């Protein structure tokens, strides 16, 4: 009886492996340039985001994207900046683009708020330092992933990230979450977290929560590997910058000024 049970388990796992190895068929190619698989998930070679700073700025104090993201992902609202957790947030241009600012830039640019999040770098410095592989670069679509089950809270990645995109839970986050979203786990004390380009939504065929939440369509999201994708078109037609390009991390979040 035991052996049967064990075989059962074996079959289950072998089945899984075979499934992944099987070449997947595309059932549709959408106009935004990424593909939708037959299981309904969105698929790209390299996910990227283009943020139109001007469009965003015109919305004034709008925080819909931040609220949408933090609600979806049970990000706690801790006021103390030392302990705060953030996946997506706003920062003054001259703080966000330290190496590109100069005091003679147009006033509106220098004072603009810029939306920041994990850059999902092509060459991320944070993943190599992780001793448990709790964070890694997903080769198939370029997302810098996190496995919170594995994170041991060593915070090497926090130190390694040049963009401040990673937050560490110094305390149990649950008391700081007003309305818990049941669908998504919270984190615990001692775990690092950050934006994952809504991998859990992509797999259900949805765009990231922030992209969907923006009333001004200031955030574009798509496959950077596909020349026909929206993000490629935007980058082709506009001048874009990235944060701290001199570090060689190759961010996949672009800003149109």
């Amino acid at each position: 009886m035991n052996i049967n049970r064990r075989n059962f388990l074996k079959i289950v796992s072998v089945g899984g492996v075979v499934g992944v190895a099987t070449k997947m068929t595309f059932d549709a190619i959408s106009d935004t340039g990424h593909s939708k698989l037959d299981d309904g998930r969105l698929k790209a070679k390299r996910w990227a985001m283009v943020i139109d700073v001007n469009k965003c700025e015109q919305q004034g104090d709008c925080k819909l994207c931040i609220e949408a993201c933090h609600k979806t992902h049970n990000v706690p609202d801790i006021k103390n900046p030392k302990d705060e957790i953030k996946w997506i947030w706003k920062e003054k241009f001259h703080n966000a683009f330290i190496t590109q600012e100069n005091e003679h830039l147009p006033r509106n640019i220098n004072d603009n708020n810029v939306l920041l999040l994990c850059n999902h770098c092509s060459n991320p410095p944070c993943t190599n330092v992780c001793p448990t592989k709790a964070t890694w670069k997903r080769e198939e679509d370029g997302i810098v992933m996190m496995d919170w089950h594995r994170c041991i809270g060593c915070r090497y990645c926090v130190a390694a990230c040049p963009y401040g995109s990673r937050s560490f839970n110094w305390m149990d986050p649950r008391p700081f979450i007003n309305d818990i979203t049941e669908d998504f786990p919270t984190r615990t004390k001692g775990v690092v977290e950050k934006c994952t380009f809504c991998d859990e939504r992509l797999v259900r065929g949805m765009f990231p929560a922030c992209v969907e939440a923006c009333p001004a369509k200031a955030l574009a999201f798509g496959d950077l590997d596909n020349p026909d994708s929206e993000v490629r078109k935007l980058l082709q037609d506009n001048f874009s910058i990235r944060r701290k390009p001199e570090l060689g991390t190759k961010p996949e979040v672009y800003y149109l000024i």
Partner: protein
Amino acid sequence: MYDAPKVILGIIVFLLLFTSPLWINIFGGQTSVKPNIQLPKDANECVYPTEYMKNYHMDLLNDWRDKVVRDNQRFLLKNGNFVDFRGKKMEMSLSHTCMKCHNNKSQFCDQCHNYLSVNPYCWDCHVAPKEGMK
């Protein structure tokens, strides 16, 4: 020098320590407390046979966890085809699949876990469905 009082004390301490489960059982008055699992009323079929689930659910969840988080595979595949469960693709998810039927953690999970002092840390992060919702 026999040190009889010390030896007798030693024997008593030895016996008390090594029979302590006995006293807890006899004076704790809870030996009759046994797990009482409430199975979902509107579902009579699980993803795997009950006997297997009873003993190996933790292995299954662990396996699912790796597939979902690390292999980016949300739905269970078997020979390249999606597995059907109750009319839908079977999603490998504690909250989206298991807890949809077993929606009462304290009447289901906690029954055995508490009885056997198993303290899985699933619920440190994953959110249990609000009990009595359904």
